[in-house]
């Protein structure tokens, strides 16, 4: 009888139907389809009938699914789970190892994933964030550092007027301001100066009040401010009365017009938003201090926007050759602009933790395989009693499902603790840390890992029962199935080789990072940091508008602090030794004037006399700046050795003159004679090469923002208190937020390196331990399996030492193979690490030689216990066991 149309469809889904109903079910559908086809053959339109039968046969899948749910799934799954739970209860040690490995492996991975997700993956908390981009300055040729990423205000305005692919363009600049209020300590808070267009551009809406309007940006407009929700709650108790209230910012009044949600912050420090009222600095096309961000029109791609922005930048370059030479424009997603620097470190850590998880899983796989082997007889009996392969597979999957469930719950707890710990230690260099949470994607990640584990570990043992002969062999008394046994041992050895390889990669990476950190921590700094404390001072422009007032303040403060007990020296500097600060351009008198746009730059570091002595920076040649340097006297300047290397490679810099070509204060000198040379401060971070720097006398460069450097004896905490009080004796409205020892500042400078190295070292230790456990497991199981064989050999005269050597050699062979593989992989991966290393070669030969040696040593140690056990085998006993 030919099969009626549609029957193939029915057959395809018959597997869903529980076995005891399957034949009858298939027969029923066949009967109906055959009847339908027979009727159709008596004259109907055959192709229409065929189509109808196929359509009806499709419905068989619903039928089968219903039966599966009704009979198959619920009852059998319940049964399987109960059976699995009983069988697991008898092996608490096994359960503990599996749950613990899964909890630690997956928990740690989920914790690091929460970091990756919160920082790198989660969309920015603005509406339609995929349309938000940043426009950055980019050199059109050659040196990428020649052009600063931020833009000038005038460039922003031209971009805004000419770019068509953008719905909105906004300029943003971060700054710190002092918030003073009656009865409260003055506070230094983060502010964002934004154009009114930032609100539509980002899609931010105030939770209270109004956003900034174009009228707020006009010079002379009534000063207004918006505060974040957090500041509103903290300082104003969430009262709506805050709207219209007057606050004092940098000594000047402003009216609060709105409250913004906390998610709208662009940096974690932002607490207040101010309208960007263009001042003198905004009139210069050479002052680049704005981030330009925009919202693309719907349907406009980033590539198109980038082409357009490049075209506008080209026009600006032609029109303003002196300021905009070589200044192109790049358009990148705003999220990218915020997180790009954090990406390599986070991805490396995530990769590392995934490797640990993988190694843990390899151990578990090996464990499950061993367990499957030891339960071969149980399975064979069940198979002999009629359990099919699917049935046995379900049994294993049910067990691994329960284990994954337990492991998953424990992993969640580990992930939570891990995430909190990571967030507490995360270096400030990582943006968006406030958005790290155990949320849906992290949960999905964890569930995914556990599902893969459950299915994988369940299927592994089942795969071994592919061979019916294996299970039959197990039933025969004494049958050990030599060939499949060897194959299985090979598989487990392969797993261990992979484990050792992964552990080698991790250990080499960690060793490189730790070595780098070690070098950074003890890099020979030209400073004497012990006993030096820095205090950040920012004199509000409002009350300190004129240089005389500024200098008078610092003079009085120096006298106050110098008189404090234990203080040995006091001085002031713009920024501190590990701060990048600013650069400014200059030319050298007597040299040919450099072409437009190619003026050299150097860091500006105004200092008061005695700063070098205070921080212990050696004066290599010439003199310090002096008290005699004033407005009206000829300018003096001290330069660093990097400056000399760059500009006077074979001559003495002292006595030469710098022309700044600009005046920031009326009466400021423009020409400065080099009077001395000092050693290099690590501006760009410990371990990185220093740039040329110019130390102007504070009196000829009276900045409002300075750091006070104090060298003193005694307890730094007590000193910090004293210093605050002394500052407030001179100006009781001045905030003193940051008081840090130089040691702390130097420590912060390597915080990111330390975070990465610490985590990677932790993961590498875990990997090493897991690999050792894996080797131990495989060898001791091998010894157990070969008890008889070893017994025979010992009976035939093999010595104990020989047996030990043989087992240890097996361990060493596995470890060496793994280490060799790992070495190759680590060598290939070294490039990934390069971005995390400061001044160390990523292919350090010592590390690459030492780590594998260590791993092999660990492997041999792990092999010791099983080897000793093998050597203690009593030949007579072993032979008696040999069945």
């Amino acid at each position, binding site marked *: *009888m030919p099969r009626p149309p549609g029957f193939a469809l029915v057959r395809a889904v018959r597997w869903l139907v529980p076995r005891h109903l399957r034949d009858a079910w298939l027969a*029923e559908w066949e*009967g109906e389809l055959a009847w339908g086809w027979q009727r159709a053959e008596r004259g109907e339109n055959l192709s229409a009938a065929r189509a109808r039968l196929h359509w009806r046969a*499709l419905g068989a899948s*619903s039928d089968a699914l219903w039966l599966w749910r009704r009979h198959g799934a619920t009852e059998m799954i319940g049964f399987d789970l109960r059976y699995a739970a009983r069988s697991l209860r008898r092996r608490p040690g096994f359960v503990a190892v599996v749950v613990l490995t899964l909890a630690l492996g997956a928990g740690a991975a989920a914790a690091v994933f929460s970091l990756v997700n919160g920082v790198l993956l989660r969309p920015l908390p603005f509406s339609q964030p995929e349309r938000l981009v940043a426009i950055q300055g980019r050199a059109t040729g050659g040196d990428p550092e020649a052009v600063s990423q931020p833009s000038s205000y005038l460039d922003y305005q031209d971009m805004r007027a000419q770019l068509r692919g953008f719905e909105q363009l906004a300029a943003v600049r971060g700054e710190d301001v002092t918030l003073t209020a009656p009865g409260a300590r003055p506070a230094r808070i983060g502010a964002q100066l934004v154009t009114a267009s930032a609100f539509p551009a980002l899609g931010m809406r105030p939770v209270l009040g109004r956003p900034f309007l174009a009228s707020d940006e006009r010079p002379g407009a009534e000063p207004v401010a918006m505060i974040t929700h957090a500041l509103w709650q903290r300082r104003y108790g969430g009262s709506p009365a805050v709207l219209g209230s007057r606050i004092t910012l940098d000594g000047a009044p402003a009216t609060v017009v709105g409250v913004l949600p906390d998610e709208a912050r662009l940096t974690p420090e932002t607490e207040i938003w101010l309208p960007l009222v263009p001042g003198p600095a905004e009139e210069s096309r050479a002052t680049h201090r704005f981030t330009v961000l925009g919202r693309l029109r719907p349907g406009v791609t980033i590539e198109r926007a980038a082409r357009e922005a490049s075209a506008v930048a080209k026009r600006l370059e032609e029109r303003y050759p002196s300021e905009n030479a070589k200044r192109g424009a790049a358009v990148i997603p705003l999220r990218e602009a915020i997180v790009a620097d954090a990406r390599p470190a986070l991805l490396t850590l995530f990769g590392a933790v995934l490797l640990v998880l993988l190694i843990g899983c390899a151990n578990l796989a090996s464990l499950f395989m061993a367990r499957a082997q030891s339960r071969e007889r149980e399975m064979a009996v069940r198979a002999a009693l009629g359990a099919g392969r699917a049935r046995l597979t379900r049994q294993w999957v049910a067990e691994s499902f329960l284990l994954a469930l337990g492991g998953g719950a424990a992993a969640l707890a580990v992930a939570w603790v891990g995430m909190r710990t990571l967030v507490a230690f995360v270096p400030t260099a990582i943006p968006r840390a406030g958005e790290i949470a155990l949320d849906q994607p992290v949960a999905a990640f964890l569930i995914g890992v556990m599902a893969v584990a459950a299915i994988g570990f369940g299927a592994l043992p089942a795969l071994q029962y592919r061979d019916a002969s294996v299970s039959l062999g197990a039933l025969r008394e004494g049958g050990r199935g030599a060939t499949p046994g060897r194959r299985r041992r090979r598989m487990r050895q392969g797993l261990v080789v992979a484990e050792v390889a992964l552990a080698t990669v991790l250990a080499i990476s960690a060793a490189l990072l730790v070595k780098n950190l070690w070098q950074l921590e003890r890099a020979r700094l030209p400073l004497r940091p012990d006993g030096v404390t820095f205090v950040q001072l920012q004199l509000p422009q409002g009350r300190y508008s004129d240089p005389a007032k500024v200098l008078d303040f610092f003079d009085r403060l120096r006298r106050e602090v110098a008189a404090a007990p234990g203080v040995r020296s006091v001085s002031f500097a713009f920024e501190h030794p590990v701060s990048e600060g600013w650069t400014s351009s200059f030319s050298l008198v007597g040299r040919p004037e450099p072409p437009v746009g190619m003026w050299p730059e150097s860091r500006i570091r105004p200092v008061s006399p005695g700063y070098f002595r205070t921080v212990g920076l050696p004066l290599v040649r010439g003199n310090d700046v002096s008290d005699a340097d004033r407005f009206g006297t000829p300018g003096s300047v001290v330069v660093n050795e990097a400056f000399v290397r760059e500009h006077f490679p074979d001559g003495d810099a002292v006595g030469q003159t710098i022309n700044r070509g600009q005046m920031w204060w009326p009466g400021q000198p423009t020409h400065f004679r080099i009077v001395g040379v000092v050693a290099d401060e690590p501006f760009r971070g410990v371990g990185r090469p220093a740039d040329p720097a110019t130390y102007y006398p504070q009196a000829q460069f009276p900045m409002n923002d300075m750091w006070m450097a104090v060298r003193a004896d005694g307890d730094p905490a007590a000193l910090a208190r004293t210093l605050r009080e002394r500052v407030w004796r001179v100006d009781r409205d001045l905030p003193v937020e940051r008081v840090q020892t130089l040691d702390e500042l130097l420590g912060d400078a390597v915080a990111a390196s330390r975070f990465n190295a610490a985590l990677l070292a932790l993961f590498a230790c875990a990997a090493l331990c897991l690999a050792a456990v894996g080797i131990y497991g495989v060898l001791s199981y091998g010894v157990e399996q070969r008890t008889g064989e070893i017994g025979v050999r010992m009976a035939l005269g093999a010595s104990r030492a020989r047996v030990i050597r043989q087992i240890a050699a097996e361990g060493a062979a596995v470890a060496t193979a793994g280490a060799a593989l790992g070495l190759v992989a680590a060598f290939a991966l070294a490039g990934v690490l390069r971005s995390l290393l400061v001044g160390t070669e990523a292919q350090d030969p010592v590390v690459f030689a030492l780590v594998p040696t260590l791993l092999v040593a660990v492997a041999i140690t792990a092999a010791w216990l099983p080897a000793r056990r093998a050597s203690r085998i009593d030949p007579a006993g072993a032979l008696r066991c040999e069945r």
Partner: protein
Amino acid sequence: MPLRLTRPTATVLLALSRGFRHGFDILDATGLESGTVYPILRRLEDAGCVRSEWEEVERAREEGRPPRRYYELTGTGAGTLREALARYPEARGTAVPGGLRPRPA
């Protein structure tokens, strides 16, 4: 599991009561999809509203096709049908041309 009395359930019950006993006959009579009717039949059988039998092999062999399964209403099923029609009186109109088919014996 209590039986959910949906409108298609009522229609299937009505078709059964009018003598449509085979799955595809019920499909033809009611115009419902096979993916709807079969699960309903399974539910009705579970709830004791219908019972199923196989037609005699001889008869099928005479017609040169495999035997078909047929369903018939039980006493419980008749009660359920009354309940269903009370809830969906309009089902009377939609379902099935009346008249009995010869019962397969």
